[in-house]
């Protein structure tokens, strides 16, 4: 039977998932929870596609049994995927500086694809947590800086100076400051370094407030 995705027609066996059908014609649909053959529970709803009439289906477990047409690339679909992903990210305790899944994290990859902010530069850092520059006495701003630069400075052997701006999640900034204090860094020194690139940003106020809350708690 024939399936048409974004105007591209493909012939598939009955019972094939939309995700496999799309892959056959070279269309990449974003996904998070699906592991083919192991888990196709469509929990994340990041792989949403729609019919021309506007009905939504998760591409990972919708199986095709008749000739049908789908749209996988439209503005409203990307917006819905983005909202679904943001909700998932909200429940994730982001502590990339302690995570060993550097460069292979689906959350980090998808956040870039869906343009969802909130993942720090540590997710792209080439150094493992045991080699972290912070432990060598180098004040790196990776923990509180928005990712997306492929950690260019860290790959070149330097530290993060925060040129991409701060991350927006207050809980994450607070956890990062707790970690700075734990490692013996002065919060004022961190803020002073952050001011180099963030002095004109309104978000700097959020960072300063988060730092104050952590200092008060300590």
């Amino acid at each position: 039977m024939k399936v048409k995705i974004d105007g591209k027609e493909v012939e598939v066996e009955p019972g094939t998932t939309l995700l496999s059908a799309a892959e056959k014609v070279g269309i990449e649909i974003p996904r998070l929870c699906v592991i083919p053959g192991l888990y196709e529970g469509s929990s994340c709803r990041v792989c949403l596609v729609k019919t021309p009439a506007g009905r939504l289906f998760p591409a990972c477990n919708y199986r095709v049994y008749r000739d049908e047409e789908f749209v996988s690339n439209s503005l409203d679909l990307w917006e819905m995927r983005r909202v679904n992903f943001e909700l998932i990210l909200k429940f994730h305790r982001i502590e990339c500086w302690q995570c060993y899944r550097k460069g292979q994290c689906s959350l980090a990859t998808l956040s870039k694809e869906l343009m969802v902010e909130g993942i720090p530069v540590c997710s792209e850092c080439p150094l493992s947590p045991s080699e972290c520059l912070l432990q060598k006495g180098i004040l790196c701003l990776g923990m509180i800086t928005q990712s997306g630069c492929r950690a260019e400075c860290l790959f070149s052997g330097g530290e993060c100076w925060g040129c991409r701006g701060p991350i927006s999640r207050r809980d994450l900034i607070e956890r990062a400051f707790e970690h700075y204090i734990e490692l013996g860094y002065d919060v004022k020194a961190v803020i002073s370094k952050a001011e180099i690139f963030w002095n004109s940003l309104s978000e700097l106020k959020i960072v300063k407030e988060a730092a104050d809350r952590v200092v008060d708690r300590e």
Partner: protein
Amino acid sequence: MSSMRLVIEEVPAVAGKVNVHVDRDRGKVRIEFGVVQEPRFFERFLKGRPAVQVPYVMSRICGVCSVVHLTCSIEAVEKALGLVPKPEIHMLRSIAKGLEIVQNNFIHVLMALPDFTGHGNVITFSKAYPGLFNRMMETNKMILEAYNRIGGRFVHTPSLGVAVHGKPVSRYELQTASRLLRQVARELEDLTLNLEDMWKPLAEGFTDPAPEYCCLNPVENWYPFFSEELRFSDGNVVKAENYGEVLNERNVSYSNSHYVLYRNSPFHVGSRARLQAYVNMLSQSVLELEKTLRLDFLNPFDNVKSQYIEVAYLADILSHSLDELAASIRGRIEPFYTERSFNNSGEGVALAAAPRGVLIHHYKITNGRLEYANIITPTVMNARHMEVAGEALVKWAYDNGIECDERVKHLVSALVRAYDPCLPCSVH
């Protein structure tokens, strides 16, 4: 001599905004070289900042020659704080800076070449000689690749810092960079054969009206990338910390940048000044290159030829240095970090060879924070010399029957481009 008033607004093919006013009245010529770009106050806004952050911000003075500002600033901070990096780290810094001079000079030659071939700008030049242009761009790529092996990213290199060299450099990487530079040197020899005929002299017979030059004093007969002394062509050698005694900084009403004079007279810094001073160090092949290109040391336009020859010379000596360094290490040079208790006080002046001349960074640090900064860039040193040379050029043009305004404008603009294609550092 009739009177004439010309204004060249925003000289083309130059980074930054500069206006040149030419006044010629009854045999007298006056040129005003006015940088109209907004000042950025680096020396002021860094006051009170932790000294260790200073080099990283100072490198932002110029995106084109960021490495020299970064390394010179690092040296000055280290001197002030009394830190001494390991010799191989210092060597790597010197090589990184040498590679920057190679890359910058090479691109400057490419940007200025259309003035000599009569093509006006690089776009027209690239259409007229696509093969040659592509080969030059490929050569530039090789130089950048060699830099990448040593320092990592070229613009605002993150691996260089105060008492830090963050990038591990293996012997294989050193050897690869050396191989690339040897390839660049060979490519330059080939390119010279093509350039020999098309590189016509501009204003032949015009000579430098103020032949006073300055460069770094060589250390142990080795091409100096960093030095403790300035050397002037009148034989005067000045220690870094005494630079203020001979160099006078002045403000002028028509320019946002300073002027720096040597004992109240203009002087030139740059490749032309360096090559004249270090001519004894040049190898036979480089001297032959100089003869082939018919370099005239006294013609300010031949600063571009000097840069080309300097590229060939530096590619050669840097590849040897890289080979020597590769032979002296085991495995790789590990990232180097010092214990960062930078709360000392002190004063440091660093001199560095920048692509366009001599760069001075002078800091006073109190309890680990910057208290005073003074930066003198090559562009401000050359500014007055450029005016004096421009005035002589306009007189020379009139004496040689060149009276067309457009032709005079072209000559003056070409002179600015031959001196310096990048001016924002003058309003740091």
